[in-house]
């Protein structure tokens, strides 16, 4: 480890870290927001379930590097525009979470769903205020996977020259110099751990009834 190099490049690394943070966070949130309605549709209409899940699966198999390169052509954006990364990762998150949301809604007890109908809930309100809250633990588990995978996928965009922690890997590779590579891995792990912790915390805070069971 060359601590001097790290010291000299602290400003640069910090700016890459911040860039990395939002490049991974924004698509996770956008992907979740899009997956909620699509997952709900897949859950509610049997015929759409197979179609949406297959589509999501196919989407996920497109290599990220290919997507980063193709998107500017499709969207008319600059190749270095970080928006390409945001859109690509949003699509991956969406692909992962459509199934998670659909299955999470399916995990809610049918008795509770029936009970909501019998109380006079309309379908949308039942979805938002009864079924989705009860699906939070399962959705949260899927979201943790998506968030962590986004942190690692962002670094691939370094090959295009988009500034974020992945730059540490390309730099180290080009200079045959391990310090930036190790620093990059450690920082990526740290970011992933922070995201993971934040999601767990959010799930915990939004599902107080889950713990009420245990300390009865």
């Amino acid at each position: 480890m060359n601590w001097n190099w790290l010291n000299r490049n602290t400003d640069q690394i910090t700016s890459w870290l911040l860039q990395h943070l939002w490049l991974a966070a924004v698509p996770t949130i956008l992907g979740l927001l899009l997956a909620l309605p699509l997952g709900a549709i897949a859950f509610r209409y049997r015929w759409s379930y197979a179609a949406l899940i297959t589509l999501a699966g196919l989407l996920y198999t497109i290599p990220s590097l290919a997507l980063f390169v193709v998107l500017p052509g499709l969207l008319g954006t600059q190749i270095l525009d970080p928006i390409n990364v945001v859109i690509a990762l949003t699509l991956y998150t969406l692909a992962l979470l459509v199934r998670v949301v659909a299955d999470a809604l399916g995990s809610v007890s049918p008795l509770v769903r029936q009970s909501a109908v019998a109380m006079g809930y309309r379908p949308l309100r039942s979805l938002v205020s009864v079924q989705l809250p009860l699906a939070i633990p399962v959705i949260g588990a899927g979201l943790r996977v998506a968030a962590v995978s986004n942190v690692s996928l962002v670094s691939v965009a370094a090959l295009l020259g988009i500034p974020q922690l992945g730059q540490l890997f390309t730099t180290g590779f080009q200079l045959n110099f391990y310090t930036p590579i190790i620093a990059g891995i450690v920082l990526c792990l740290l970011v992933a751990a922070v995201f993971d912790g934040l999601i767990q915390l959010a799930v915990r805070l939004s599902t107080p009834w889950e713990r009420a069971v245990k300390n009865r």
Partner: protein
Amino acid sequence: MISFQSVSKVYPDGTRAVDDLTIEIPTGKITVFVGPSGCGKTTSVRMINRMIEPSTGSILIDGQDTTSIDAPFLRRGIGYVIQNAGLFPHRTVLDNIATVPVLQGQSRRAARSAAAGLLERVGLDPAMGKRYPAQLSGGQQQRVGVARALAADPPVMLMDEPFSAVDPVVRAQLQDELIRLQGELGKTIVFVTHDIDEAVKLGDAIAVFAVGGRLAQYASPSEVLSRPGDDFVADFVGRDRGYRALSFRAAGRLRLHDEPTLTLDRPAPADPVAAEAVDGQPYWVLVVDDEHRPRGWVDARQLTGGRTVGLGDLVLGGSLAGPQSSMRTALDAALSSPSGRGVAIDDDGRVVGTVAAHEVLGAIETARAAAPASGPHHNGSGSTTKQGPEASAQRAGSAAAAS
């Protein structure tokens, strides 16, 4: 009044769940739909609040066709208690109860404070309001389920096997509680069960459904037991129906005997009642507490003069006949008592006397001879605001065993 007019439900696969059902459910009474599984009783009830739509026929509530009312709006006006309570696990007890008022546009605050009152009404500690359903016992959850159904004060309540998942002791408590609540509220209740005992206990009228969704008999409980409409009903109500029918005969006419008693934790008299004991036979003496409430029986041969009667000496058991008891309870009290003498108690639980099984049977025979064709005749369908005179006597509790 809820009217089913030639209602059928046939599923796409050809299953006929309900077959041409025509029935009028009286306002302010408990009507029980009873039958084996697959007889269409739950389907029928769910058609009332349109959770299931009929294939043909129509359902009217107070003359209004339910299909003319927006379904969610209709449902908010009909209380619903589901199997296993169906509470929302993510909401506190108070918020569960407040569900329908909030859907109807009441402020959460107002609905919550009303919910606290309902908790007491169904016999729960208001402190439970802040708990989540998973923190309650099965019986408590069912009470919350009933409170939730009552929250918007709907004139009609549908109860779909609400007490089937709790143990027999709790079930009996919940049933008594429902009878008490109904006495205060006078709702139009449609209650689904597969348990004929529950149907007989709760129902002002009973609709017996046969497999295939056919209404086999619709009559008062005493009539279903004493005059089953057909072989299916006779078979369904079972072999004990003669004994069950005793539930509808008030025990008021029984003559009670004075019963000598010993007091718990007090010394037995120097020359105990055992003087009269026949050699080799137990000589049972009733033991009461200081309030003269029955605690059990003791075999007086075991007691020597001056000894204290302790809990350890007691043979427990023997059900008790209270002031509003039926012949069934009185007979059971006598049969289950070690002495063969059933203990009758007053409203405060104090011993008023005893009665033997042969005396109960004698009273039943006498009553039977006096009124050979008990109760009015009813057949299958037809009007049923009916409640046999025996049933009302049991419910009203005007007759007293302690006479």
